[in-house]
């Protein structure tokens, strides 16, 4: 029983960075901008938050710094993708390359071969009454503090995107920009802000990954998490709640990857086990299939006439 509880508990912890990226992708793609850049925001945020953590030792400052870094990188991306109108997919990829090169070079130059020293991660906090609920309490409410914030972030983002005026504007811009323009919504501005908010969320995911889970910075430490975030958003139909569910699938797969080798009767090569999240991603994509109609103006450049 305890091992099952532990399995789900760690699945939620592992799903959180992917989940945050997925929420960010919802904002960005609902406004019609393909969020291929989320890996750059995430990785940049990992680096900045680790640097701040080493400098000040303050986890809150580190995460705030990481979130901000993600936003700034996304703002730069929006200049090229939204204003100039370069191919969003390829420019996103280019941003990923640039940030990857920048962080890896800085890592090599400042910390040389030794790498960044490991630091202590903030501990878990059990919520007094809720964590007493059998099974569910131990799974959901015995987590690090940051993860409780994420529980709030999901419904809030859903409300913002689907119930608020600003969310309506974002969706209008993503579906039919010229129509939105004709009723006075500033298309480029709305898209830019949506992309930056997306970057803030991706940055938050990166910061939590670095500060909370890994406790150090390594080259290309985000792996494929940002892609999984994009896939989660796709599977969830660009709704934060649906995306959260999809991100949990990846959390479960990743948790399985970490735990299956501890089982005595299963003898799998570690490389095969590492494939689990990717295979899960492919299965998720295939299951979603044609059922998802993406925002009509996604990846399409809009120029004010």
């Amino acid at each position, binding site marked *: 029983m305890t091992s099952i509880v532990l399995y789900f508990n760690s699945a939620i912890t592992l799903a959180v960075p992917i989940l945050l990226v997925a929420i960010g992708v919802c904002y960005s793609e609902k406004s019609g901008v393909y969020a291929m850049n989320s890996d750059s925001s995430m990785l940049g945020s990992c680096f900045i938050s680790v640097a701040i953590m080493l400098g000040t030792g303050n986890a809150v400052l580190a995460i705030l710094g990481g979130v901000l870094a993600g936003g700034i990188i996304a703002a730069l991306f929006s200049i090229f993708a939204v204003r100039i109108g*370069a191919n969003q997919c390829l*420019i996103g990829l280019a941003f990923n390359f640039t940030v990857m090169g920048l962080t890896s070079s800085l890592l090599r130059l400042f910390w040389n071969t030794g790498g960044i020293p490991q630091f202590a991660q903030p501990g878990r906090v059990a919520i007094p009454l809720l964590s007493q609920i059998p099974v569910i309490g131990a799974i959901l409410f015995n987590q690090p503090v940051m993860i409780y914030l994420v529980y709030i972030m999901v419904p809030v983002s859903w409300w913002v995107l689907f119930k608020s005026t600003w969310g309506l504007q974002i969706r209008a811009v993503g579906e039919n920009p010229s129509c939105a323009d004709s009723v006075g919504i500033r298309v480029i501005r709305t898209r830019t802000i949506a992309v930056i908010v997306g970057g803030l969320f991706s940055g938050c995911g990166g910061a939590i990954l670095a500060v909370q889970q890994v406790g150090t910075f390594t080259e290309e430490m985000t792996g494929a998490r940002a892609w999984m975030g994009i896939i989660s958003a796709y599977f969830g139909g660009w709704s934060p709640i649906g995306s959260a569910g999809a991100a949990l699938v990846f959390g479960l797969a990743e948790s399985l990857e970490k735990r299956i080798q501890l089982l005595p009767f299963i003898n799998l090569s570690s490389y095969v086990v590492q*494939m689990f999240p*990717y295979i899960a991603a492919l299965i998720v994509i295939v299951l979603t299939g044609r059922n998802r109609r993406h925002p009509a103006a996604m990846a399409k450049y809009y120029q004010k006439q």
Partner: protein
Amino acid sequence: MNDTKKLNSATVIQTIFRLSSVIGAIIGLLIAALFLTLLGINTIEFFVELVKGALGSPKAIGNTLNRAAPYMIVGAATAIAYECGSMNMGQEGQVFMGGLGAALVALACPGLPKPLAIPLALLGGMLLAALYIAIPVIFRLYKGINEVLTTLIMNYVATLIVSAMVIGPIACTTSSSYPRTDEFGAAYMLTNWRDIGHLHTGIFIAVAVVILAIYFFYVHPAGLKARAVGFSPMASRTAGISPTKVFALGMLMNGAFCGLAGGVELLGRYNNLRGSYADGIGWDSLIVALLSGLDPKGVLPAALFFGGLYTGISTLQRTLGVPSALLSLIKGCIVIFVMTGTAIQKYHQAKLKKPAKKEA
């Protein structure tokens, strides 16, 4: 009169667009140099050493050409595939599968004579890589799933498959010190020249592929169809060309040539398969294709430039302690500027026209 004027401004913009690749490459290098200056490495010294590292000796030239060979093959194929309306991002994985296919053939038939062995192994690589890319193609055709994410995810799967194969089913039988397969034997080795940095015959295969690509793209009727689809899928549909078919064939062709590049890299540089034997070739080649302006004619210089860049920075890592990750930074900057140039040409021509006319 009016017509010639239109043509003129079009050619001028075309030239600016062509130059945007070169400008992008220069700006990318300058940003890298600026970055190094901040860290106390002299810019001039950096460029001198970079050129020396890439072209300074026969060994360096050999290394540059060896690295450029797979770039040319994958770059030319990717340029054409993108013109066919596909967005394949899985070159990295397909190159790895190509190497695996070649290795499987080599391990399965060890006794073959060389003229038979090498084509067979390369064909095996092409076949496996084409089968691998068939998965996202099928997803796209029958499930309507965009190929960008599927090919991206399958990159990770391919590298893991190769890593799992070399410690499992086809692991080395004689020693277990380093994860790799058995030696393939001399029949599966492309001829190479020791004096010029082990330059192997792969470069001739690569140049042949590029020439074939140029012929196909500009002369062959099928190439015209591909360009029509890339230019306007709607118009080509009314002209009786099926964009779906062109897309599928373009993707499969791209996969097969990625496999060929993987096979060439494997048989030319190594005589056994190891976990990370072609790290980065697929990604670099995608950048080569973009740098060429998705035109097979531009692939040759772009591939040579990138081969030199790679070799130069690898050398600098040893001599000046420059981190090799700098290559990623330069790659990113190049793509940002090339894509910006394309977008400006596409959307902001009106603003461009005035200064362009003055130049002309």
